């Protein structure tokens, strides 16, 4: 089992959600985060153009069985990009090992519980 954590742009959440569902990956947890990477964005403050240090992002977490990792990653890669070639700030995907997964309501464990 793996835990896929994707940091994406706020405006791509709906697209990613829809693409994942189309790929039959329905279970997901999302969090509001702020991040800093290559991307530059601007805001206006009383006529002054301001560059924020941290840019609002959305973190998407998906726990999947190993067989689904590639599907999930490819789906996210396709859906989270701005334009065909992507733009700086489109985000990152992290994949980490997961040792166990338990469904609280039933107590099912492992691949079953995911």
């Amino acid at each position, binding site marked *: 089992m793996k835990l896929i954590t994707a940091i994406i742009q706020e405006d791509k959440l709906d697209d990613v959600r829809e693409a994942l569902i189309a790929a039959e990956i329905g279970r997901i947890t999302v969090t509001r985060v702020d991040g800093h990477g290559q991307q530059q964005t*601007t805001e206006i403050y009383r006529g002054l153009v301001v560059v924020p240090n*941290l840019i*609002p992002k959305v973190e998407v977490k998906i726990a999947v069985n190993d067989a689904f990792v590639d599907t999930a990653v490819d789906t996210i890669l396709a859906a989270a990009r701005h334009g065909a070639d992507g733009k700086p700030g489109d985000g990152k995907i992290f994949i980490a090992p997961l040792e166990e997964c338990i469904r609280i309501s039933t107590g099912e464990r492992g691949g079953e519980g995911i």
Partner: protein
Amino acid sequence: MKKSKRAAIWAVFATLMCLVGTVHAADGSPEIDTGTTAWMLTSTTLVLLMVPGLAMFYGGLVRTKNVLGTMMHSFAAMAIIGVLWMVCGYSMAFGPNVLGGWCGWNPDYFMLKGIDTTILDSGIPEYVFAMFQGKFAIIAPALIAGAFAERIKFRGYCIFIVLWSLLVYNPLCHWVWASDGFLFKQGAIDFAGGTVIHISAGSAALVGALYLGARRGYPKTAMHPNNLVMTLVGAGFLWVGWFGFNAGSSVESGLKTAQALTATQIAAASGALSWMILEGLLHKKVSSLGFVSGVLAGLVSITPAAGDVLPWGALVLGAVGAVFCYYAIELKNKLGYDDTLDVFGIHGVAAIWGAIGLVFFLRPGAGSGSFWGQLWVQTEGSIISLVYSGVMTLIILIVVDKFFGLRLSEADEKAGMDHSLHSERGYGMLNLNS
């Protein structure tokens, strides 16, 4: 009210004057009634309060990414129509007939330059009347914005409201409220703007919603209000401001004012109660958004009628108005068009009901003529407002769309108006960069 003393032999004449409500100074011009002026100044202020109130009401209902953009619709109307009304709106609405009565015009009213010391017969400076009416001109397009929410360009919106104000609001206001307006002369009752404001805004909203098309993802994606707390508070301010809206429309500080305020209070309460009960029966739960929708339904229902119906009439108008609105929104959900904040479903429907329904509850002596005659005039007024505003709105939308663009691009819509149009975020506190 300052009155110069007059001799005893004037007593009879003076009594007469009181009856017609006008007091003239020695030089024949009316004198200030400080009390009426005080209330009309207050009413003007209260109606102004409705604009931030509306911004809060609407702003709370959209998604987080559109909150500022939506509030800016109300605020921009304050600035744009605020200037436009002073430049030419007042003249078009309240000047004497020109263009065959399509609108009015009085060169003295242009930039309000000729009314610097004019006192109206009601004892208030004309400026106060002009400013009071100007607030109504601001509210109307701000209401429409609810149908455009979350998907309209700011520039397109600004140009739209300029044209709508010039081509729809000012003429309509002239027809219904100017003393030589053709609906006024037919005896149409529109105490505080059911026809002029709410029906015309509702109709424009319906046309606008259909023209713009639904928001991306509607109705499949659930779109949650970002801040119902603010919506509730906004509704509270609308209720408060509506006292100025309706009771101020009496342009006095007396019995009619009191009657209008009483009817307003009762209809708002009964509208809310009626919606609460309906939801309670149908869903076993009473939502706060339902509550405030009921408040609005009640307030709009009583607007055309406020000064002319008895308290029990206000009770019924408000309660039934809420039921109509409830089912109008249900119908919208079935039909599937995206009148985002239900401008037609609340303002349009309740105002039509109020404008026509008031005939059943008129205070003895109110209205001008027979029941059927009045019923017809009211219906006619509603239809004219509905159709005129609808058709003109469509034309304006097409023109603005062609030359300036109206609908946000899909990318901008997804990113949200706050970011794509204003380069800002409503709630910086949600993020750690503030």
